[in-house]
């Protein structure tokens, strides 16, 4: 899709109709097997998170100030005793500054979207798994339908309908992505209900909600977390793509996608405007994807003992 990346988990819709797809894996040496290999990427992600939480530790000037006499200065220019390490943009704003402040939007939206879609999707999946019958049929059919609309177009339609803003982007990504979690949660709930300890709990008369909370949810969560970590990178790209077409957070709030979109107009004169926000985006997504694989190898029960 979308010029947006789909399906890092390899859960293509082909699986629905009885088509057996092989599990998509990276070669062993590219997967992070032990914590030592995962550490550098965890540190990179940690740096991004710190940048998002405390951008003022990294850059000084307020991100929104513009100075038209300092337009499009190349990287490394020293002006009025201030070094613009990554240059300035079309309104004379320091690029490094906006890049650091843009981290906040990117991560805030990605994490919120994963959290909301994960909670909502898991809730529906567990409900479907416990209730079964008609309720399950309705929930799972709706999930199928949502998955059959190309994600990015559905996202565009929702943001157009709601109007672009930070909250609405999160709502939109939640509406588009919840079925991923619902499918996993549904399958895991069904599986958990067949297990000895759930049956024992039922036999001694434990209440339904208690069993779900105490026995089923802990069985469901590891798989949901695996999906969530793999989704995080996709959400970062989605947010950037939405703001690239003007449907993300609105200016002057800095967002990488919007910065790239602005930079496109000055591509023949100011290469730094299209290069650096992309580098920031790429490194973040790469780290998140590799860490996602690591988490999957660690947590996914179906992975354990396979092809070690």
């Amino acid at each position, binding site marked *: *899709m979308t*010029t947006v990346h789909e399906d890092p988990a390899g859960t293509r819709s082909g699986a629905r109709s009885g088509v057996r797809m092989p599990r998509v894996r990276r070669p062993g040496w590219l997967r992070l097997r032990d914590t030592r290999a995962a550490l550098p990427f965890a540190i990179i992600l940690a740096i991004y998170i710190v940048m998002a939480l405390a951008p003022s530790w990294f850059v000084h000037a307020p991100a929104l100030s513009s100075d038209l006499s300092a337009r499009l200065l190349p990287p490394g220019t020293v002006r009025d005793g201030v070094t613009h390490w990554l240059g300035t943009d079309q309104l004379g704003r320091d690029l490094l500054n906006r890049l650091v402040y843009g981290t906040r939007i990117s991560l805030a939206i990605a994490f919120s979207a994963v959290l909301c879609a994960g909670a909502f999707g898991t809730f529906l999946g567990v409900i479907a798994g416990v209730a079964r019958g008609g309720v399950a049929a309705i929930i799972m059919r709706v999930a199928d*339908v949502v998955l059959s609309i190309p994600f990015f177009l559905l996202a*565009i339609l929702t943001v*157009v309908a709601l109007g672009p803003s930070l909250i609405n982007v999160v709502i939109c990504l939640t509406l588009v992505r919840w079925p991923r979690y619902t499918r996993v949660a549904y399958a895991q709930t069904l599986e958990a209900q067949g297990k000895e300890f759930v049956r024992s709990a039922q036999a001694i008369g434990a209440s339904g909600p208690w069993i779900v909370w105490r026995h089923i949810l802990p069985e469901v969560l590891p798989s949901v977390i695996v999906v969530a970590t793999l989704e995080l990178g996709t959400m970062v790209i989605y947010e*950037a793509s939405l703001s690239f077409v*003007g449907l993300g957070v609105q200016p002057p709030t800095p967002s990488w996608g919007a910065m790239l979109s602005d930079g496109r107009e000055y591509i023949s004169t100011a290469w730094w405007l299209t290069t650096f926000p992309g580098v920031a985006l790429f490194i973040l997504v790469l780290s998140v994807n590799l860490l996602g694989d690591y988490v999957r190898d660690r947590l996914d029960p179906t992975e354990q003992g396979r092809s070690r």
Partner: protein
Amino acid sequence: MKLFYSGTFRYIIGRLGQALLQLFGVVTIVFVVLRLTGDPAQLLVPQQATAADIARVRHQLGLDQPIWAQYLHYLAGICHFDFGYSYVQNRPALSLIMERLPYTIDLAVAALIISVVVGIPVGMISAVQRKKFLGRAAMPLVLIGQSMPAFWLGLLLILVFGVWLRLLPTSGAEGLQSLILPAVTLASLSFATVARITRSSFLEQVGAEYVKTARSHGAGMGRVLFGHVLRNASIPIVTLIGLEIASLLGGAVITETIFAWPGIGQLTVQSIDARDFPVVQAIVLFVAVVYIAANFVTDMLYSVIDPRVRITAAEG
């Protein structure tokens, strides 16, 4: 009559029903989302319009009817291929889409060819030679392809080939040359998916008994790979390619924007900018229909290639 009771027939009917249900669901979701946009009449009238003007427009558009009547009217329209009317251009949305469609198809087909021609060999090499340098070098490429936002890749290509080297045109649709950069950009993500699925598919097959048998009978590795393994491994790959075609149509939105390619994607963004909601809605519907149809056709093809599918599906 025998055909009627056969598993194959039941499978096809069941799958068709599923596809129609999906179609109905998509139409409904699009309707619901569209109603969230509020009152389209407000957007149509000029700023200084009176309440009476708005009421008149509402009546013209049928917006004063109860919601269920609007929904039925909308459904009936879709059954007659009436996908709505552009507010801005004053033309049926479908004819706008049809006008742009050939460009998007060109782009999607070119991207698909690139990702298959590059993706399958890369996946094969990384599976077969996984202990050797070439095999090891192949997968990082895929990982990069997967983590690289396509719109950034597009911008970098413009920067390198358009601005610095001045080799290729970077916007518009004039001739084959201007197709190259957008097609490479659009191909970057399906390339990664194709390569990964090829790799896993080959890894599953290379260890199989029949490979050992063929090898022990003296067949060369090349012959085993292309004569036996490729055929067995191709089933998931074919499925994936079927799904990719539809994704590429939807995915052209950003690529077309970057390269000013006059296809459906550009129409989408232009319609968003112009607040021309019926067109946006029609595009989403259109692409969803293509997506569901491609899914259906792929499944049908698949059950022809691999009889196990329809048998297990009919039994389950």
